[in-house]
């Protein structure tokens, strides 16, 4: 059992040379629901095997009813990014492709850095799945592994 998502294609105004002239960039975007004590937030997140953590914009915490005061904290940096603070909380994450549904408790980060979208990294997300990035068919498949806790 697994969920499968087609890559989202982002148009390019010019042929993308590394992709042999393709007119768009495909990216592994996953529709996701994050739920906290008092609310939920639905978004397309970027599946990112290079991200250590699963990270959301800090503004979302308030929507979810999460108070980050005194939360476990760390710092993060990425390509081109200055170091920024991340504060962590436990939430519920849910993914579905309209067929199977996976929902689990996850420890995720909230950052003040101006990220464009949620980053679905190893901690809290990819650690629970075997992810197959199928470049030929432009899809990504997520199958729960032995660590997947479920709810």
């Amino acid at each position, binding site marked *: 059992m697994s969920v499968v998502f087609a890559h989202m294609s982002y148009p390019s105004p010019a042929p993308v040379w590394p992709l042999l002239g393709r007119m768009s960039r495909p990216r592994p975007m996953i529709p996701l629901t994050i739920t906290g004590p008092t609310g939920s937030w639905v978004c397309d997140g970027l599946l990112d095997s290079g991200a250590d953590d699963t990270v959301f914009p800090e503004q*979302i915490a308030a929507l979810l009813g999460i108070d980050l005061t005194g939360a476990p904290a760390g710092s993060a940096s990425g390509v081109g990014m200055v170091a920024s603070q991340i504060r962590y909380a436990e939430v519920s994450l849910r993914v579905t492709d309209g067929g199977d549904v996976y929902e689990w408790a996850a420890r995720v980060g909230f950052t003040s850095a101006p990220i464009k979208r949620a980053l679905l990294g190893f901690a809290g997300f990819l650690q629970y799945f075997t992810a197959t990035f199928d470049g030929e068919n432009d899809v990504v498949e997520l199958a729960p592994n032995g660590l997947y806790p479920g709810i």
Partner: protein
Amino acid sequence: MSTATNKPPVSMPGDYRKTRREMSEDEYQKWVYKHIAWAWDGTHIVAGAENLGDLIEELRRRGIDTSKVVFDYMDGPETYL
């Protein structure tokens, strides 16, 4: 493997991904580099703003439930690293 039983059915948004794929270039350019909110039925964008905080405020100002839209970002053509 599905989640536990006795849970209410998952409320799914409409196929906003299909709407985005089929969006005209002109329409896409209206929203490029903006945080946007898709209507729950997935048929159209209800609001957009330069930053996420402003988008949330706009939705609240218009009385739109932030848990009943899908948040997205309309990228430009730059390479992601």
